[in-house]
């Protein structure tokens, strides 16, 4: 990598006349450095092995979850949608199987996001960028697109050849097939997205008959375009230049994080002619410099240069290298998931005991320091937030009452001398069935209340309130207290609400104001 040429040192006392001028120009001289660089296309070769199989499985599972989820039905009774996962923006409700979230309960979503963040930290500190390498949508869709490309155009060499060919019928047919398949996948991607926001079967019918809302078509068009461009053409550029995570990973990794690592202590010095070199008594490592690891890399890097910003740890180079090592009868895992600590230990062993002895002791996956303060902290916080949210979810109210007191006027004196205050009550029925409640006054002596809209102004202790399924009902009530009982200033009391058909209760504190 180190390609620049250091400047020539001037010898002390040398004069201009007797110094030979060397004809050299710095490789990285400012004048030669380009300001902009065109993308150099990468043709990842097909890899085979454990990690490639794992990636296929993860791709099938993640894409399956994404595409199938909106079509899962979940019976919630006649008053709520039967889609298992639904973000109902119009009614401001979020449904997730047996959980229904109102806008004011959005902290559950915030909690989930915090858990996702902490989970990412935990996974990264243990095993590096596994999110990037296996589950990130950019990786998954790019993998799928490359699979399509390979199916139609062939593997690396065939694709490179096709690229160089002039445009002809065959090239046109192949390219249009690939692009068409990409577009279909992109449209399905955008299509699946919109189904999370409306009843999927209804929306699909509307969509194909041209009756869906404009926003549905726009969303599908945008997601089709971004999927097509990002997974088809941008690929590693998205990870390297657009995503912030590679920049953060440096802070997330430490010497105990598992990284896809080229074991240089074992591979170097590399040699293409191992047998000949060994026969000559030269000291050569296990790397035969076949470049298989470079050819399969979707990010276009050489893992033998060490850990790099571009590396998404997809581990395909491990598969490629293990294939070669198996063929030439050498121990596997010249490239392996290794921690920096293990690597250093192995390298020290190789220096003292020799390469062969160190290779024999090499651990395939070193998880020696999985448990350390950092991972314990992440896991602990993750579990704590999860438990708090679970506890909150299990004990949360499905009945609530909010009180907004009248501020102008604060109080009204009635002709019989009693003092009246006005309140707007909001009774929330967060269950998917209509319910009848009783709202009552507690803690205000001799006080009574009535519904403002009713003709009957006879004060009572409790009023009946019916609320539709999954709705909020707003009621204006007046509360009056006899003038000789009312205490000047503020008196606290409670509005209690009780489910007449069940046991659920709720309450809200309020203040009653009487003049001095």
């Amino acid at each position, binding site marked *: *990598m*180190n*390609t*620049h*040429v*250091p*400047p020539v040192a001037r010898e002390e006392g040398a004069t201009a006349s007797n110094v030979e001028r060397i004809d050299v120009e*710095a*490789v*990285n*001289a*400012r*004048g030669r*450095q*380009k*300001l*902009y*660089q*065109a*993308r150099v296309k990468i043709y990842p070769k097909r890899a085979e092995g454990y990690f490639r199989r794992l990636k296929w499985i993860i791709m099938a599972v993640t894409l399956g979850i994404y595409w199938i989820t909106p079509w899962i039905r979940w019976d919630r009774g006649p008053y709520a949608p039967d889609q298992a996962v639904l973000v109902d923006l119009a009614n401001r409700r979020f449904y997730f199987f047996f959980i229904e979230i109102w806008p004011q309960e959005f902290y559950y979503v915030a909690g989930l996001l915090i858990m996702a963040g902490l989970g990412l930290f935990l996974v990264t500190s243990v095993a590096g960028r596994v999110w990037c390498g296996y589950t990130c949508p950019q990786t998954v869709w790019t993998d799928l697109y490359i699979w399509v490309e390979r199916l139609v155009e062939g593997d690396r060499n065939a694709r490179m050849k096709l690229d160089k060919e002039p445009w002809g019928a065959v090239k046109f047919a192949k390219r249009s097939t690939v692009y068409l398949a990409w577009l279909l996948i992109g449209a399905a991607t955008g299509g699946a997205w919109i189904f999370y926001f409306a009843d999927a079967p209804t929306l699909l019918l509307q969509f194909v008959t041209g009756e869906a809302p404009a926003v549905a078509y726009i969303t599908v068009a945008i997601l089709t375009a971004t999927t097509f461009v990002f997974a088809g053409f*941008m690929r590693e*550029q998205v990870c390297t*230049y657009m995503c912030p995570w590679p920049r953060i990973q440096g802070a997330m990794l430490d010497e105990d994080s598992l990284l896809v690592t080229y074991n240089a202590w074992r591979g170097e010095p590399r040699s293409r002619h191992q047998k000949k070199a060994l026969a000559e008594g030269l000291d050569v490592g296990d790397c035969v410099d076949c470049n298989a690891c470079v050819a399969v890399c979707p990010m276009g890097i050489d893992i033998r240069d060490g850990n790099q910003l571009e590396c998404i740890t997809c581990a395909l180079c491990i598969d490629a290298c293990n294939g070669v090592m198996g063929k030439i009868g050498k121990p596997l895992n010249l490239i392996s998931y290794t921690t920096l600590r293990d690597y250093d230990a192995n390298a020290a062993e190789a220096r003292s005991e020799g390469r062969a002895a160190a290779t024999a002791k090499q651990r395939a996956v070193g998880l020696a320091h999985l448990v350390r303060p950092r991972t314990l902290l992440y896991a602990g916080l993750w579990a704590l937030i999860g438990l708090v949210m679970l506890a909150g979810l299990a004990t949360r109210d499905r009945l609530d009452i909010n009180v907004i007191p*009248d*501020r*102008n*006027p604060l109080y*009204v*004196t*009635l*002709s*019989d*001398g009693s003092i*009246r205050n*006005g309140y707007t009550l909001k009774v929330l029925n967060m269950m998917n069935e209509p319910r009848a409640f009783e709202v009552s006054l507690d803690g205000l002596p001799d006080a009574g209340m009535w519904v*403002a*809209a009713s*003709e009957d*102004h006879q004060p009572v202790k409790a009023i009946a309130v019916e609320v539709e399924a999954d709705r909020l009902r707003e009621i204006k009530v*007046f509360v009056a207290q006899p*003038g000789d009982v009312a205490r000047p200033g503020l008196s606290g009391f409670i509005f209690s609400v009780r489910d007449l058909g069940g046991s659920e209760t709720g309450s809200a504190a309020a203040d009653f104001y009487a003049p001095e």
Partner: protein
Amino acid sequence: MADAGKTANPNGQGGTGAEIDPVTGYATTGHEWDGIRELNRPLPRWWLWTFYASIVFSLGYLVVYPGIPLLNGGSAGLFGYSTRAEVQDAIDLATEAQAGRLDQIASLPLAEIKADADLDRFAVAGGRSAFLVNCIQCHGTGAAGSKGYPNLNDDDWLWGGTLEDIYHTIAYGIRSDHPDTHYSEMPSFDGMLSRPEMAAVANYVLSLSGRAHDAALVAEGAALYADNCASCHGAGGEGDRSIGVPRLNDAIALKAGTTAEEIVGQMVAPQHGVMPAWTGRLSDTVVKELALYVYSLGGGEAAAQ
């Protein structure tokens, strides 16, 4: 190459302090944070194209939307877009959406509007808007009034608290110049009663509503009240809404306050409130909305069966 990092950039005559990074061989920008130096790597070309594309987009945006300042105003843009037109569209839409309900309010009797919860809510909201523009100057933003200006939240009415009563009062006013206006007048008792007699009457009136009073004067006051006041205010001070005579036996005092001195003052020089007739100033629909709003404040009374 260990010393390469310390070597000045061979081509770095610009004096930016840029150096060659020993690991990658790339020049640095010369920026350093806690020992971390920024490499001067080329930008991806697509980034450059994206930049150009955004310039092209901005030019198109400038042409399509109003954006070029001219001497008189600015360029109109290809499609004549303007935020004012957008507001006007929104207002037109809202007016159109309200039209049906406003027509209903105009044509239906008050009781039927009241019976339709949805229409009533709409009318009350409209009435509140009209109230905040036309009525708060006297009655206050909360309609709580002040001395001499009735509180519209309570259950004490001079001219009646049914929807029709309230509508009539708003439409034709009190002591206004409209022929159908409410009119009442209390005579001055200055000269008819002596001051001590008036004080006795005042203490009797205070006793009617259970306020603090001089009990020694009540008997004399009661006799004088029966002779001079009861014909209008009623034997027990119950007032008479048909002619706008206030109740004296309740906890609400509009003008006379709660002391004997204030009541005497009212007997000597009676004050009479004036409210303009709103019919002619406001449309009948708005007057109806105002009536429903005032009715909703808490003192509304059911119409007599």
